[in-house]
């Protein structure tokens, strides 16, 4: 008996079919996350958009949901973002410069690298416990306790690994020829870094810093743990005094509203989420824009 060609075609047909079925299943899994993302965004918009108004943006929290607003949380988030940048940017960049331009490959450098990788994996709530003990209790005379300064220092430690990793990549991307050229002209190591390497790496460093700040703006758990308050009906004074002021931020205000049983506060939470997501979107857009600008300049 000879096997007929039709049997052979049947076999490949089955194999092809299985290929196709697997591909469709894979596509479905890939799209699943996107569908959930879309559902989440639409759900929040439907719930919160009608509540969003100028009054909502410019009012303090209140016992009555229809009178409550997010002014103190929004201002608190901006304070936190600014202060976190002040601490995390210089220290993160300095660490990256040291690791890329100075440190000899060896045990110490490896230790620092493994350490930074591990810090990036520590749950954020643990940073809250660290902040509570060190910045709120031990450094109380400086920070004034559960203040915006203590919160920003905690956040700076939390996002530091992100700033360091992004800065290192940006510095590593600067061509070696640039450094050699500088050294050949008689510049010292620091002069080469300051005048040649940093200007070339800066857009990448800034992009990484903005993304790190976006992470800080969205974080809730560490700030709750270190004791940020949930009901604040005033703004921090502009100036050094303001640093020691109690504060709240958008995610904490949202958490507070979600946790209440009344539906009116849930609507407020949705409106607050829209503001938070809009802020994050703006920050991410800024980061992408910066990156594109940089790439265009390089190409041109």
């Amino acid at each position, binding site marked *: 008996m000879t096997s007929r060609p039709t049997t052979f075609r049947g076999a490949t047909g089955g*194999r092809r079919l*299985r*290929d196709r079925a*697997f*591909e469709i299943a*894979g*596509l479905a*899994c*890939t799209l*699943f*996350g*996107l569908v*959930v*993302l879309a559902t*989440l965004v639409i759900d929040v918009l439907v*719930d919160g958009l009608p509540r969003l108004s100028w009054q909502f943006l410019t009012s303090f929290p209140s016992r009555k949901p229809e009178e409550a607003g997010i002014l103190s949380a929004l201002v608190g988030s901006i304070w936190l973002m600014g202060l976190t940048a002040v601490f995390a940017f*210089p*220290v993160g960049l*300095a*660490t990256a*410069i*040291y*690791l890329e331009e*100075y*440190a000899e490959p060896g045990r110490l450098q490896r*230790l*620092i690298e*493994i*350490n930074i990788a*591990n*810090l990036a*994996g*520590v*749950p*954020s*709530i*643990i940073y809250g*416990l660290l902040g509570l*003990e*060190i910045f709120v209790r031990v450094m109380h005379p400086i920070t004034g306790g559960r203040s915006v300064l203590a919160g920003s220092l905690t956040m700076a430690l939390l996002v*530091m*690994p992100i700033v*360091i990793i992004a800065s290192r990549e940006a510095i590593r991307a600067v061509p070696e020829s640039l450094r050699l050229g500088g050294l050949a002209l008689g510049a010292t*190591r*620091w002069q080469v870094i300051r005048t040649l390497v940093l200007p070339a790496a800066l857009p990448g460093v800034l992009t990484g810093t903005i993304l790190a700040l*976006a*992470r800080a*703006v*969205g974080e*809730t*758990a560490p700030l*709750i743990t*270190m004791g940020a308050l949930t009901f604040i009906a005033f703004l921090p004074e502009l100036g050094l005094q303001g640093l020691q002021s109690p504060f709240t931020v958008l995610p904490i205000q*949202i958490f507070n509203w*979600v946790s209440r049983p009344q539906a009116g506060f*849930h609507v407020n939470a949705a409106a607050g*989420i829209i503001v*938070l*997501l809009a802020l*994050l979107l703006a920050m991410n857009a800024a980061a992408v824009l910066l990156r594109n600008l940089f790439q265009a300049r390089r190409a041109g």
Partner: protein
Amino acid sequence: MQAAVEGAIRAVLAACSALSILTTAGIIGVLAFETLAFFQEVSLWNFLTDTQWTPLFAEKHFGILVLASATFLTTAIAVAVALPIGLMAAIYLSEFATERVRRVIKPILEILAGIPTVVYGYFALLFVTPLLKHLLPSISGFNALSAGLVMGVMIIPLVSSLSEDALYAVPQSLRDGSYALGATRVQTATRVVVPAALSGIVASFILAISRAIGETMIVAIAAGQSPRLTLDPLVPVATMTAYIVQVSLGDVPTGTLEFKTIFAVGMTLFLLTLGLNILSHRFVMRYRQKYE
């Protein structure tokens, strides 16, 4: 003069990079200090074997198993969602999707990891739980199921991105060899590429588990704050992280035993996630050695 300036700058930069070591030392020091104080009042044996967790009541019990069971439950549900879906998405993006689809979809998928967790908490409590109530009328307003499912969605990009990197790094020659032997794309993907990238995939799985264990806001909002030793996904529970939040929101005076409990719980959490992260790192190193 020039040399002195150079030396000073180098010293300042080195000091900054030492701060990261100091941070780790600070975390371990703070947790160890308060945890030791805690264990002077509560025995380690009670902590590990008691089946009740009632530090805020008059009759106090400190059985970490109660909180650990809730953390295990929510993590298991999240992992059951994220691992299969994430891996399938990774295989699709690496082995089936065109380069253009891959370039567009990968960043969009990563947005999922960038959404603040408090937003997921809102979604779990006010969208997913009411939806589940239609299917399971007996489900409570706070439950581990809804929190776990939403947490699973959040960690999909973690699994898909890292697994996809590992799959993509498998040399083309292995695929070509498989095709030359007459294997189909599915056979090549599941029997050649996935096994070759296995250590990278396992690393992403472990990292996802670690992330789920440490996740706070979703479980604090949607899973409730009632400590109970159960594996029933339909009732309110309190995870380790949710307990820390609960105490932090209340007016527990510093220095009391109740206050020290959050550090003991934090230490447990830290050791668990650190162990998993180190394990994951080992697997990553293994796959790097193979192909680089």
